[in-house]
């Protein structure tokens, strides 16, 4: 069998890792060992933050919906209660979107919520 020297494969592997850590600070983008640690860590953060992103956006939408609903004379909490009782299934992403892009439609939704808020579910 032909002789295989290990340097070629190692060089390829190092190049692959170093390409992935461009922009990391200090030796994290230069020295292979540090770069490899940095790469693993960044992939872990990516995995975690794909999940955290869903929470982050939900929080942002809630802030927006709350601001818009108070302009319509109802609190966020009452709005959500009213929509649940009134059987309206528009989610928070879309409510926030309406608040930004179509204030009139948001007011209509808020009116529905007002009719149902305060009743027993």
């Amino acid at each position, binding site marked *: 069998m032909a002789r295989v020297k290990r340097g070629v494969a190692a060089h390829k592997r190092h190049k692959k890792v170093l390409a992935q850590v461009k922009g990391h600070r200090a030796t994290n983008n230069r020295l292979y060992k540090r770069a490899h640690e940095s790469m*693993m860590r960044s*992939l*872990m953060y*990516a*995995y975690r933050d*794909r999940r955290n*992103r*869903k929470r982050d*956006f939900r929080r942002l939408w809630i802030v927006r919906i709350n601001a818009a609903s108070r302009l319509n004379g109802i609190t966020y909490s009452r709005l959500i209660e009213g929509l649940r009782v*009134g*059987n*309206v*299934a*528009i*989610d928070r*992403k*879309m409510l926030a*979107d*309406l608040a930004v*892009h*179509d*204030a*009139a*439609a948001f007011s*209509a*939704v808020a009116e*529905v919520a007002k009719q149902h808020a305060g009743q027993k579910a």
Partner: protein
Amino acid sequence: MSKKTSNQSAAGSDAQYAIVETGGKQYRVQVGDVLSVEKLDGDTGTAVTLDRVLLIGGDGDTKIGTPVLEGASVAATISDQYRGEKIVVFKYKPKKNYRRRTGHRQSLTKLEITGINA
């Protein structure tokens, strides 16, 4: 989840739009919009009907479904069946000799909205 389809025009003033639910997510669509949703069955070019319409707005009128609007639907054609960008799923526990690396590509369908039936 938060990425806006680039050609989505600003609603509000006059153009009719609908909020539809498909694949567990809700989208605000107008006629002519192209959007990516979770995979729906069907070949490229075939028509699909989205019947979970939660709200129809624009045209100075807002109709709110409880939870869906009876008889309303959104017509669309499938313009592509494709898989999203590769996501590297990497799990690692320090000092425990534990590493897992897998790739994932979500199956998606590109839809072009052709009509909103109130």
